[in-house]
Each structure stands twice: as structure tokens, then as C-alpha cells.
């Protein structure tokens, strides 16, 4: 394999990794906020992709333009999921761990069933968009435009999230609730409101990622499953709950995936990611950047 091909493949791995970071950051945000893993995270991504697809088919809106709309819709969806399901799941007295896992797992299965029922298991795709299928050449390396734009969106989203958490009242409330939900209640912040908004924000971020993914990936009811597993690995690598750990975790996952794809048959490329997850948690049981 030539040096060019290696650089080429690492560059696409990096772009994909930034997108993985964007997919995973909502998961990390919610976990950090309330120690809950959303096992329906992949299905959030899946409905965002469907939403983008239908906006394209029925209203001819390009995925790039529908991204903010999809993110807004997912924001509402995430908050509703918190208010209808998660709010009750975290109150469970018996089998608390099991309840947290299986309530969101149940939601994932229902969402998959509903999409199969209404949209059939067929594979869909956004056939022609502004960015789809285009490549640019940067210093002799060919980069797919949708992934490149996706990576830029991811960087912008992480930048925005950083400012949001540090510079706005809601961001500070979020950070404070994450540190000590009990104390926050004493100063008059409604914990439930913060949690609901946190779920909304987490879902909006994965919604943004879904709109971009819809440009270059097939859309089908099970599409979330494989990305969800990658997202858990990303979040775990970064240390559960660390929002910027997810950014770093995404980049690592993208590069590892690209490297594995060069070394092993393509159908085994996910093995590298999973192996890295296991290696990291065996050495550091709280993830790379997680506090011990």
C-alpha cells in the first residue's frame, strides 16, 4: 500500500470520526447529566435520517437546509421522551439498573417496529442532493464533500456547545445539575426542566448528525443499531459523560476504523473499533478521559 493511499484513508477516517463524535455527543451529554445511557440513541439517529429523507421527497428540501429543522424536531422529541418515559424510569425503586436499560431499550424496539410498519424495511436514499457524490481534492487527497461538510458541522457544533455550556444561563444550570442535582434544587432550579432540556439538546445534536448522514448513507429501520454501538464505544472511550471526551473518542474511532479497514477484510472493519473499546476499558475501567 502506498503512502498516498494510507494518507487518503486516514483522512477519510478522520472526517468520519468527527461525525461519529457528533453522533455520540448527545449520548455523552445525557449520561453526564443524569447517569442514564439512552439505549435508543441509534433510533434517534434513524428517525432523524427518515425525517431528512421525507423532507427531501415531499418538499424537495436539501438535507443541508433541513438539518436545522430536523435538529429542532428532535429537540422536541428528546424532551418528550424524557417527560414520558425516562422521568419515571429514574424513579424506579426495584431493579433500578435493569429499569434504566430496558425502558430505553423498549423504546428503541418500538421505534424500529413503527418505522418498519409505516415505512417498510426497504432501503431508502436521498438520490440527488447538493453535496451527494461530490469530492474535492485538497493537496492531492480526494475527500468526499458530504463527509467533509459533516466534519465541519461537527466541529462547529462542538464549538457552539462549548460556548453554550460556558456562556449561557441554561448551560451553567446544566453544568451545575450535572455536578449536584440536589444542591441545584435548593437554589430554585427545576431539575426536571433541566433534564428535559438536556434530553432535548442531546437529541437535537444527534438529529443534526442524522441529517448529514442521510446525504450519503442508506436509510432503513435498523440503521441506528450499528451506529449506536459505535456511539457507545465513542462515549466510553471518552469517559462516559465527558462531552469533549466524545469529540476525542470520535476521532480515535474514525482513525481506528480506517486503519482496520486497511489491514483486515472490509467486513471486519468494526472489529478494530470493538477491540479498542475492550482494550481501553480493561486498562482504564472508566474510559480514556473519565474520572476514576
Amino acid at each position, binding site marked *: 500500500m502506498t503512502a498516498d493511499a494510507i494518507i487518503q484513508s486516514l483522512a477519510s477516517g478522520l472526517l468520519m470520526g468527527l461525525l461519529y463524535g457528533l453522533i455520540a455527543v448527545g449520548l455523552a451529554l445525557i449520561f453526564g447529566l443524569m447517569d442514564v*445511557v439512552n439505549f435508543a440513541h441509534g433510533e434517534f439517529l434513524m428517525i432523524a435520517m427518515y425525517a431528512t429523507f421525507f423532507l427531501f421527497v415531499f418538499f424537495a428540501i436539501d438535507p443541508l437546509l433541513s438539518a436545522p429543522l430536523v435538529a429542532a424536531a428532535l429537540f422536541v422529541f428528546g424532551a418528550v421522551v424524557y417527560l414520558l418515559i425516562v422521568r419515571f424510569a429514574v424513579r424506579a425503586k426495584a431493579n433500578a*439498573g435493569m*429499569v434504566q436499560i430496558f425502558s430505553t431499550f423498549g423504546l428503541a424496539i418500538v421505534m424500529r417496529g413503527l418505522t418498519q410498519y409505516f415505512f417498510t424495511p426497504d432501503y431508502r436514499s436521498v438520490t440527488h442532493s447538493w453535496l451527494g457524490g461530490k469530492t474535492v481534492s485538497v493537496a492531492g487527497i480526494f475527500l468526499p464533500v458530504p463527509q467533509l461538510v459533516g466534519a465541519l458541522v461537527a466541529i462547529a457544533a462542538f464549538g457552539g456547545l462549548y460556548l453554550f455550556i460556558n456562556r449561557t444561563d441554561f448551560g451553567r444550570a446544566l453544568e451545575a445539575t450535572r455536578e449536584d442535582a440536589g444542591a441545584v434544587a435548593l437554589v430554585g432550579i427545576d431539575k426536571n426542566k433541566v433534564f428535559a432540556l438536556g434530553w432535548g439538546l442531546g437529541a437535537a445534536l444527534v438529529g443534526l448528525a442524522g441529517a448529514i448522514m442521510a446525504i450519503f448513507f442508506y436509510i432503513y429501520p435498523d440503521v441506528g443499531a450499528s451506529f449506536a454501538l459505535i456511539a457507545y464505544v465513542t462515549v466510553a472511550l471518552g469517559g462516559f459523560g465527558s462531552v469533549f471526551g466524545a469529540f476525542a473518542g470520535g476521532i480515535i474511532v474514525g482513525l481506528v476504523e480506517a486503519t482496520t479497514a486497511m489491514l483486515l477484510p472490509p467486513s471486519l472493519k468494526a472489529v478494530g473499533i470493538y477491540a479498542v473499546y475492550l482494550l481501553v476499558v480493561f486498562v482504564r475501567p472508566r474510559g480514556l478521559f473519565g474520572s476514576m
Partner: protein
Amino acid sequence: MDTAFAERRRRDLIVAFVLAAIAATVPLFVKDSYLQNMMVLTLMWGALSQSWNILSGYCGQISLGHALYFGLGAYTTALLFTKFGVLPWFGMLGGGVISALIAMALGYPCFRLRGHYFVIATIVIAEIGLLLFHNWDWAGAAMGIEIPVRGDSWLKFQFPRSKLPYFYFALALACVAWFVTWWLEDSKWGYWWRAVKDNPEAAESLGVVVFNSKMGAAAVSAFLVAVGGSFYAQFVSYIDPESVMGFQFSLLMALPAVLGGIGTLWGPMLGAVILIPLTELTRSYVGGSGKGIDLIVYGGLIIAISLARPQGLIGLFSVKSLAGLLSPRRKEAVR
């Protein structure tokens, strides 16, 4: 020994015996092969969930990767039979032993992990197994293995003409899984597991070797699940990676226990008796599994149960007339 507890255990045993005897006579009246098929599946999932429950329910280590052991059991039996003509009985035993050993080898690093890190590790490991079998040409890769019919006897464990022998084997498997659970519940292992589940630090300080008890639970659980996998391979006589090691199998093993009552003696079987016929019937009533109705039913049930009755449906049977099958009271008895 607490007499109330001892008495409850005796009653459990009698109830189980009566239920098994009734179950054994059902095929004499129900001749329809669709219904018999459904009963085989119900018993098999009940047995699998009962085995899953040992590690995830009693010992509290929630595994969503047990499809690995199911698949290993199925593949060991199928490969030994088709490649070397080894009788499925030996394959079953071999698959069980291999799975138990692998479970302990994997448990060695994994049992240091807590909570979600552990759950995700189990998913990821099963997924690696699935991908490896997908790419293993000798084992049929993605095409899988067709198990040829070489007889119609218990010796070869093949019954092309009737479902009845499969039914009785599945019943026996369910009884064994139940009995192992019943027996372990009152052994030192059972007490260790519950202590590890409730508070590992406290258990450790009282002299329970937490790590070893998790390893024991993993080995027993994996062995029984692999035997179930071997049975399944003979029953459907065609396996491929997705159909025996896919993630949905891990989930399907957990669901009956979650529904019936996780970490309880009767929960998994009760859950299977409700869940499997319900999904099979919805599936055939609506027509085709592609519609997604079965998923909606599954998922809806899981959400409802985990929110409304996290201790499972078994609690509803707590009236004395039903032989006191309940777990909360049992806990009191244990204390």
C-alpha cells in the same frame, strides 16, 4: 434454616413437578404442528432466559451478549456433526464446556467493569464473535451450515417427521434450567450472588469472593445457554451467523426474565409463557415478520413492565393460594 423458607422451597418443587407433568401431557391433546412448534419455542426461550437469569438476575451482571454462547453451542454441534459425524449429544456437551470456558476467559477481564461499561462490553464481544463467524469460511461464513438429515432417532437427535421429541427435550431442558436455579438459590453460591448484586463492597468485606462468584455464575449460565443453542441447531437444522448469534438473541434471552421478574425463580418461565405465544400469534395474525408489529408489541411490553412493575409480573401471583411464589416475601424469609 428458616422453616418458612424451607417450606416455600418444598412447595416450589412440588408446583414445578405438577406443572411439568401437566405440560408433558399437553401434546397428547394438541396435535397441531404450528401450536407444537410454538410450545417448543416457548420452552426453549424459557430455559434460555432461566439460564441468563442466573448471571444477570441473581448475580446482577446484566449481559446483553449471551447470543455468543447460544451461537457457540449451535455451531459446535453443527460443525462436529456435519464435518466429523460426531453425534449431537457430544456436540451439545462440547459446546457447553467450550462456552463455559470462554465465559470464564472473558469474565476474567470483564468482571472488573461496572454498570454500563460491562453491558456494552458484553454486546461488543458478542458482536466480534458474530463478525468472526461471518468471515470463517470453514464454518460456512455468511452462508451458514445446512445440517443433513441422517436418521430419525434419539441417537442422532434428528426427528424429521415429528415435533414431539423436540418438545420433550425442550421440556427437559426447561426443567433442568429451573432445577439448577432452584438448587443454586439455596446453595452458598445463591447467597453470594445476591450479596454481590446488592452491594459488592459489603459482600467483599464479609468474605464473599466477588470475582469467583461472578465467574461461577457466568460458567453455569453460559453452559446452559450453549446446550439450548445446540438444541436449536438440531431443531431448525439450518444455522447461519445472524440466525444464532445475532444481537436479537441476546435481547430475546433477557426479555422473558425482565417481563416475568428478573432474579426470581419463576419469572423467566412465566415471561416466556406470555411473551413467546403472544409474539408468535401476532406475527402470524398480522402476517409476516416484516411488518414490525411484533417489535411494537415487544417494545411496548418492555417499557410498560419496566416502568410499571420493575419487579416483574411474578409479583402478581403473590397470593398464598398460589403457593407463595413471590420474591419480596422470599427476601424477607431469607433475612
